[in-house]
């Protein structure tokens, strides 16, 4: 069964600190995505990747970096966390074509205090 695993599931960070959210997929999918979910906004795309070594900016990349060191792993990095980045973050993977299903992890709840 397709699986996307996120860690940690919950995180409290201090303002100005560095935060790394990790994602691992066992689907052997080329594409991976990071979204954040906020009330009234749905899911908004932060960064995505076509494969190992590639990262692309999504709709709201400011304040975030991404890293794809391997097919399986995709990280989201907040170098200087701010309270406005308090949100629920979802990682997802997909085969890469527009008409295929995207598989989601269970989310990471990040609170920046």
């Amino acid at each position, binding site marked *: 069964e397709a699986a996307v695993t996120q860690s940690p599931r919950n995180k409290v960070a201090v303002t100005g600190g560095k935060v790394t959210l990790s994602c691992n997929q066992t689907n052997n999918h080329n594409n991976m995505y990071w979204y954040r979910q906020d009330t009234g906004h749905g*899911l908004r795309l932060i960064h995505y990747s076509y494969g190992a070594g590639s990262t692309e900016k999504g709709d709201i990349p400011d304040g975030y970096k991404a890293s794809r060191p391997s097919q399986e792993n995709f990280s989201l990095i907040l170098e200087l966390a701010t309270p406005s980045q308090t949100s629920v973050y979802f990682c997802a993977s997909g085969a890469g074509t*527009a008409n295929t299903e*995207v598989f*989601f992890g*269970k989310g990471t709840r990040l609170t920046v205090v």
Partner: protein
Amino acid sequence: AQSVTQPDARVTVSEGASLQLRCKYSSSGTPYLFWYVQYPRQGLQLLLKYYSGDPVVQGVNGFEAEFSKSNSSFHLRKASVHWSDSAVYFCVLSRNSGTYQRFGTGTKLQVVP
């Protein structure tokens, strides 16, 4: 430009009643449309998808959706809802030349006795 609009942030229906969740889209290319469901504290799961053929598509758990090019709509329906259908439902748009999917803001469905 691509966009998806879900005009109803919340919908409440009685158990056993019929359901329609509305979705309007705007796309400059051939649209690929999806409905995903998010149960509490879970990631998103695919309900159904449409990209060509019969405008009425069947999904899991008795859900169906109807594509209308003339109305730019992709409404989700169910004949008889169950309390377990309480969740957040997202309408999602992609294009055949698109890189990633765009999410609507979601509709929270509450099924009451």
